[in-house]
């Protein structure tokens, strides 16, 4: 299988190694464009959803272009449907390639999930059975994406609410195998790890330690909503609409101790608060990042 790493030269040209700075970043929201340009807030990077910018022109591109001149950028896809039981949408992949060409982001990420069936797009990240058939399919899709984009993809661990009876491996082992086979990186969503561990009664420490932590290129932090399942047990919903929970902050600190300072995004996609509140959350993450000694990995980089 093809392995694309960020330091690998792909066309004989000098190797490009775009990387996000190991600092805290926030999601870029259209209601904050002007304030960001006026105030130049001290954040490490911004992240956008790729699909919001797959439009021809207008204010979204105008402002993203200006903000990209000042900040590192992460482009986060929500529409590739890497886990779908059907071929990738080539047209969508081509549009993504153009977007990445235009904005030259330091990171590109997608989800371990499916979101399309036939020509219908469901706008949600749907769960996968962890078996050999899924593993082969997901790896083939990631190979296809990485060879078209000529860059490493960071794969995000999902938040899930159900498991599949015919899964033959656990999620962390599945992700480890995808990373090993494709050379993709891991976008470690600490909130998702916590949410799924509560929802499926996993040991979150064991889950984290079983992940390919050496491959983490970015961390996501977000808030969740709380519900109950049919037996009255806690069911956490990854809604990106609340501040980061204290338990997730604790887990994040533990992750940083394991892997060192890592680019960290505060995700908020619903009930978007004023920019200052997002910046405060990012500052909290930044303080935790500042308290972490560089790891050997980063010291030698």
């Amino acid at each position, binding site marked *: 299988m093809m392995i694309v790493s960020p330091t690998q030269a792909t066309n004989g040209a000098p190797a490009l190694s775009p990387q996000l700075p190991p600092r805290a970043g926030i999601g870029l929201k259209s209601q904050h464009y002007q304030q960001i340009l006026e105030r130049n807030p001290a954040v490490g990077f911004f992240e956008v959803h790729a*699909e*919001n910018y*797959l*439009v*021809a*022109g*207008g*204010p*979204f*591109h*105008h402002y993203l272009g200006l903000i990209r001149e000042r900040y590192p950028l992460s482009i986060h896809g929500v*529409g590739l449907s890497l886990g*779908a*039981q059907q071929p990738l*949408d080539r047209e*969508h992949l081509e549009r993504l390639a153009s977007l990445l060409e235009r904005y030259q982001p330091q990171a590109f990420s997608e989800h371990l999930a*499916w*979101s*399309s*069936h*036939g*020509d*219908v*797009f*469901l*706008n*949600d990240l*749907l*769960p996968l*059975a962890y078996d050999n058939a899924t593993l082969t399919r997901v790896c083939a899709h990631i190979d296809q994406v990485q060879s078209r984009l000529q860059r490493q993809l960071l794969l995000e661990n999902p938040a899930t*609410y*159900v*498991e*599949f*009876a*015919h899964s033959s491996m656990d999620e962390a082992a599945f992700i480890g195998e995808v990373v090993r086979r494709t050379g993709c990186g891991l976008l470690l969503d600490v909130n998702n790890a916590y949410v799924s561990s509560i*929802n*499926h*009664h996993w040991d979150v420490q064991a889950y984290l330690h079983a992940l390919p932590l050496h491959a983490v290129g970015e961390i996501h932090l977000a808030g969740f909503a709380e*519900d109950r*399942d*049919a*037996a009255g*047990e806690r*069911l956490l*919903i990854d809604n990106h609409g609340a501040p980061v929970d204290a338990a997730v902050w604790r887990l994040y600190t533990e992750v940083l101790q394991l892997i060192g300072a890592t680019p960290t995004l505060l995700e908020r996609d*619903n009930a978007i608060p004023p920019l200052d509140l997002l910046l405060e959350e990012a500052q909290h993450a930044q303080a935790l990042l500042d308290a972490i000694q560089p790891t050997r990995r980063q010291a030698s980089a």
Partner: protein
Amino acid sequence: MNSQQDFFAALLDPERDCPADLKTWNGSDPAARFAVYRNNVLSSLIDALAASFPVVQQLVGEAFFRAMAAVYVRHSPPRTRILADYGTDFPTFIEGFAPAGSLPYLADVARLELLRIRAYHAADAAPLNPTVLAAALAVPERLGSLRLRLQPALGLLDSAFAVVSLWAAHQGALALAEVDPDQAQCALVLRNGLAVEVLGIRRGDLVFIQALLQGQPLGAATQPALASDPTFDLGACLAQLLRAGAITHCTYDKQRPLP
């Protein structure tokens, strides 16, 4: 076997059982957990429609809008991964949605909002330098054969209802009580710099701009405009387009734009 087929079918159909191969750690009914996915899909797509059609939502109220949008989402889920493009046939759906029958203008308000979304995200196009057009207009004997190209963001709506006033009332620009919804209006939607504008235009202007969009030169475009509206004023219409930055090229020859 395509197990995602079952999952997919059950997501959009609340009458269907949840997929058979789901399990939960505590043996609880997976249907309660599957409902999270059902709700995520439906509510996120309703939210996308609410973001694109805010005035339609204001006109019918949030509860009615969400119920109407839920029927639409189940009937017409997105065939695009770009949510800005979702809902192109929502106005047609509204037209046939019997519970909204008491608001016959609702579909056209939705059409206007759709034009606004399109204009917002349309390709950028620099407006024509006014001196170039002024020079061309100063040669009256060639005026009839002058062709104008308009910005990609531009859209037109010919409505039997007061769509422009209804829309303006919901921007606080005029009082809703003063709007007679049964008064026919024509709308011109365009993007002036970064801002989308909704302009009320006369019927002759609409016919004229439609002809320009079809590639007709000024002479051929003016005839149907005057035929439909004897008060059509070519100079005023061109001035309005120019002021709004809507004209991007002018040429006597389709192949060679003027500088």
